[in-house]
């Protein structure tokens, strides 16, 4: 198979980060772009052959992995879906029975909405406007905090949100109290069974992901009593439903020494870099600078800042290699989030295909 000449191959596969501005930022997408040279720009087999994912770091809330052999558009699609379209549960409605704290009702409700909940959203359904809140689409939390008179001020933390598996405990104001005293008083939810009876929740009860998020501060004599209803939603609608704190990628840095750099100049180069990309190696004809940790490059461009240094160092990004990071807010583990995102993209593609066919 014919190869592209070097300068074109560089343009095809690398983003050059020059000192003044990056060039070749846009990928050449058209598969026939190099057809005249006998090179197929994109083909499926190459993708199947080359595509790989390697996990670099995985913690409870964070994942960093390399995604190689894919186009920026697709990597970006995952990022966008992660931020905006993977559903989670978040508090949407707050019923305030009493709030004598300084914090306003709306602000309190807003704060509650932003608290990440430790619950798998896949177990729930979306609740539309006309749906009644039931055990399938709503999680109910109660909060009753009070600061006694004479006591010092206290802080209401997110661990005081108590899961109410049987639904709301606030009674609905009814017009006719005398109709049927025997009938169970209606509340704001209509649960047919307790959520704690479901196997998924009996083991790990639903709670806020972090116990130490400040909700409000109470002075002596102040009290907050409320019920918060969490529903399923997506980040597109409101950032509180976004399952990630953020998700992003960066292209794999490539630092190339265009000429050999020796001795003093090499030491200078090593000193220039704040993230220690370069090292010095002893070779036959002196001490030579080598690129040891290109991954660490943050593109501060210190190494090429000084006049003439761009003759020695070239900073590039590999166009099809993404270092992808997902910071989960905790509803789902980060690796699951990514698979969810893939599933959503799959669904979307399927929808397009069915619509087209």
């Amino acid at each position: 198979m014919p190869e592209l000449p070097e300068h074109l191959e560089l343009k095809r596969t690398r983003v050059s980060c020059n000192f003044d501005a990056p060039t070749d930022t846009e990928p050449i997408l058209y598969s026939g772009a190099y057809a005249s040279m006998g090179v197929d720009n994109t083909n499926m087999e190459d993708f199947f052959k080359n595509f790989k994912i390697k996990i670099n770091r995985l913690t409870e809330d964070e994942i960093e992995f390399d995604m190689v052999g894919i186009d920026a558009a697709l990597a970006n699609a995952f990022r966008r879906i992660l931020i905006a379209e993977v559903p989670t549960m978040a508090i949407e409605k707050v019923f305030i029975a009493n709030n004598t704290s300084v914090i306003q009702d709306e602000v309190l409700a807003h704060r509650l909405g932003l608290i990440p909940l430790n619950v798998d959203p896949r177990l729930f359904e979306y609740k539309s406007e006309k749906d009644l809140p039931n055990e399938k689409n709503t999680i109910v939390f109660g909060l009753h905090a009070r600061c006694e008179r004479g006591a010092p001020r206290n802080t209401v933390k997110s661990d005081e949100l108590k899961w109410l598996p049987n639904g709301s405990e606030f009674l609905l104001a009814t017009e006719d109290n005398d109709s049927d005293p025997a009938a169970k008083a209606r509340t704001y939810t209509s649960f047919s069974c307790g959520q704690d009876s479901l196997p998924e929740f009996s083991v790990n009860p639903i709670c806020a992901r972090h116990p130490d998020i400040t909700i409000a501060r109470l002075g002596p004599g102040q009290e907050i009593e409320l019920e918060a209803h969490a529903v399923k939603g997506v980040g597109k609608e409101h950032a509180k439903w976004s399952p990630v704190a953020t998700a992003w990628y960066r292209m794999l840095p490539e630092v190339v020494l265009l000429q050999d750099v020796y001795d003093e100049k090499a030491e200078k180069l090593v000193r220039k870099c704040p993230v220690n990309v370069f090292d010095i190696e002893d070779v036959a004809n002196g001490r030579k600078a080598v690129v040891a940790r290109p991954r660490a490059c943050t593109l501060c461009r210190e190494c090429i800042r000084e006049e003439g240094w761009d003759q020695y160092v070239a900073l590039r990004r590999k166009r099809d290699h993404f270092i992808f990071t997902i910071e989960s807010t905790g509803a789902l583990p980060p690796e699951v989030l990514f698979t969810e995102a893939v599933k959503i993209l799959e669904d979307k593609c399927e929808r397009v295909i069915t619509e087209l066919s």
Partner: protein
Amino acid sequence: MGIDKQFMAAPIGSAVDKFQLIPEFLKVRGLVREHLESYNYFVNTGIKKIVRVNNLITSSVDPNIYLRFKDVRIGEPSVVVDGVNEKLTPQFCRLSDMTYAAPIYVNVECVTGSHGEKEIREKKDVIIGRMPVMLRSCYCVLHGKDEAELARLGECPLDPGGYFVVKGTEKVVLMQEQLSNNRIIIDVDKKGNLIASVTSSTAALRSKTNILMEKEKIYLQINQFQTKIPIIVVMKAMGMESDQEVVQMVGRDPRYSSLLLPSVEECAGLGVHTQQQALEFLETKVKMASYPGASVEKESRAMSILRDVFIAHVLVRKNNFRPKCIYAAVMLRRMLEAFLNKDAMDDKDYVGNKRFELSGQLISLLFEDLFKTMISEAKKMADKVLSKPSRSSRFDFSQYIVKDSISLGLERALSTGNWYAKRFRVDRKGVSQVLQRLSFIGSMGHVTRIQPQFEKSRKVSGPRALQPSQWGMLCPCDTPEGESCGLVKNLALMTHVTTDEEEGPLISLCYLLGVEDLQLLSGEELHSPNSFLVIFNGLILGKHRRPQHFSNAMRRLRRAGKIGEFVSVFVNEKQRCVYIASDGGRVCRPLVIADKGVSRIKWHHMKELLDGVRTFDDFLRDGLIEYLDVNEENNALIALYEGDALPETTHIEIEPFTILGVCAGLIPFPHHNQSPRNTYQCAMGKQAMGNISYNQLCRMDTLLYLLVYPQRPLLTTRTIELVGYDKLGAGQNATVAVMSYSGYDIEDAIVMNKSSLDRGFGRCIVMKKKPIVLQKYENNTSDRIIRPTKEGYFAERMQTLDYDGITAPGEIIRSDDILVNKETPMITRGPTISSGGLPDSQYKRTPVKSVGPVGQTTVVERVICCSDKNNNLCIKFMMRETRRPEVGDKFSSRHGQKGVCGTIIQQEDFPVSERGICPDLIMNPHGFPSRMTVGKMIELLGSKAGVSTGRFHYGSAFGEPSGHADKVETISETLVKHGFSYSGKDFLYSGITGSPLQAYIFMGPIYYQKLKHMVLDKMHARAMGPRVMMTRQPTEGRSRNGGLRVGEMERDCLIAYGASSLLYERLMLSSDPFEAQVCRACGLLGYYNHKLKTGFCSSCRSGNNISTMKLPYACKLLFQELQSMNIVPRLKLAEV
């Protein structure tokens, strides 16, 4: 004071860091020290003087009956309610619409008795009125309280005070800028004539004396004379009959005498040679009846004008006119000097020639007037009683002191701002203003504002221009735009405005230090070379042969604390005068004294300050620091920094950033910005939303804008920490990317990140007060509140009501919901109805509804019940609304760069950096080149370095050399250390395509303010709606849901375009179409008779020639109005 600990612990470098003096200065004196000091002077000293001068009321019927005021004092702020004395706190007054005032007590001695038996009695603590108390002044309950005590009183510890609470509203008495009194000003009038003017102000009266030079001759101009008087005639009238003496007094320099010659000749030409002749001449020129105070003998009228009006502040004792002659001669000499040398002209805009009248002086003026009125009224009433031939009751003089007139007079003046005292010919409007409480910085800026006395319409640039003498005294940035630009000023951070000081001891001190008395000097000696005139507060004391020695002695005494620290000593070499000033209203500022260029403050002094063993006053007392006023600054050589000091240097600045005021102090790196941008920010900082005070939720402001999550700026300045802006911020640190995005960012619009808004960026709370008064009526009935009904027409709107009929806090109110279920009695006039009350049937429903746009909901924040000034029950609601930013809301950075939100875009569409940082807003780079706000770029860099190191960075004005501002180089180094580019430009990926952007993007945090202008309050559209009753045209204005007018110019466009149908529709059909009956015979309007179903003309008395036509109702109205004025408009109709 919020000073960063790290900084405190840092060792003091070789050049002594004097910054610590500023917080110490502000701690001792506060930001509004001038207001407080002037008020304190008035209530402690001024009021006593006024009362002492006017302490006797004697009856004109019986001179033995008198009342004498012995002592006056002001008590604690309190109010008498139902006979019980209740103490007042400012917060209580604010909430219940009361005046925060304290009783004025006097001790009186008066004659009482009846039927000839008189007895002298002393009465203690008679109340003559109530004096509004300035907050934080010495009679205020907040005086000297610490933070916890202030909190207990419901007061914000950061609030500076310096204002009054009158009828529940906070009123500031603004500083008034005036030309200084009793000083000679040489100037050029409109015709180009040289003029020397003196505005004399004494306790008795104010007068203006002008001496002008016209066609080489010199004249005197006073209002009391019809025409200008040749000056030599005046001199002669004052007893200087010899021309030689006049010339000697002016100075024997032949140039002066030659200039005086034409005037002397003119005088001789008039045939005036003796004093008698001069007085006779003057007599003919006296304005008739213009001087009612003159005594009856005609002869002395000219004399009395010369004595009492001409240069009135130079007093004539025992008919000795000599001081006046000398003063006039000095004026002449100054004028001739200026004639010969234009440099000797005075500059009216020079700050040294200005005086600032403060609240204490203004109130003292008002009080004096009211007190005198009260005395004359008491006298009148006593005389009336005494003149009755037979009085039976016991006479008590003290009964006739009415206390209401003083209280009401003061209260009225403060609440309306109209300062009116006929006695002193004072009539000013807008002296007191409602304290701006939109933002904390706004109210701080308001109390330091200076109001000009000039009219704003004059088209001269002089008074508006920045004066070099403003340096350090008045903020060069903080002035409004528009008509009052440059006229309204603000004080700089360390400025002090002096209050009056006792003159007597200073005068005798001057004589002791070798001033030769004026009385002993001949005219010849007056201007003898190598001696200087000594002028004290505009009065010529005498002369001194060794002026430098004299001034050094005075200054040494001042530094030793033997005379007041604000006494200024100024040697004017050019005029050969030493000016000593101790009068009030001069601006001055503290400076470090240097001996031969070496600062007197050594590091151990500063260490003692840091250890708390030394205070700012100790620095003053030990002669390390002194206050210099604008005039004395001319005798000093002030070095900016210790390192710059030369051997001749006499003073060193404390910190250069103190030349800016409070508002300009918020701007980081203002010295890198284009100057007008700083001015714009000064105006905008006052509109920024944020926190107002610690007690903001306990206050009941009519309109309150709060930010939900206000932040402290990442890039702070020293001023921010000094005034407490870091505790009551008004903005948020937004990560800004400077790039073009989406096209919705043209013309300064900004693009906002929706997720940031979701997370609370720019979220604000708007609170409005809604007071509801339960009226009492004359027939002893009153409004009442009843329980809500569960059924019926109103039930749906009464859901939010409590059982007491008042909406409860926390309820969500829709438009038209009932707030208070009020009922009003049917009959409110007529005979009194017994206390039993009316039956229910006698009440009609008058529920109070909430008004507002349909579909918008508000929440009841708080409800308070109190009684208003008429003792009616008043229910005040605080209505709250929480808003998130929307397209069209206005935002601004701290560099005068305002912009509206152009569009809101999803986070995933936003660009994202290599570290996953996504900006909160995007600003268009076109905002930079023409605005040249380099400070904003440095702020971005500094904040970025700040977030990466976790340390607040500083950007104080001119702070780089002294370490109060971080240098760009060090900031860049920090950025590089944390892996950013030194330039602050990041490598960003597009959020839409996913590939990198084609440029590095300047990105980092900038402190952004949300301004109070929001679309929600402004947007307006209407299809159909209310009309004005009289013209039947749509109403005007958003508040009345008015229509959008097709104005004259719009009409012109439509005419030019020829869109006649559109014109017809807009001007007629959409406005006020009316079908009129017109009589073809007489051309007048008829009417339509509905019974006969025909038109009828009432002037022709027939319905035969009636036609129907359409015309605007306003047109018909015009015809009728013309008819009412006896003009008959007749319509001539024709077929088309």
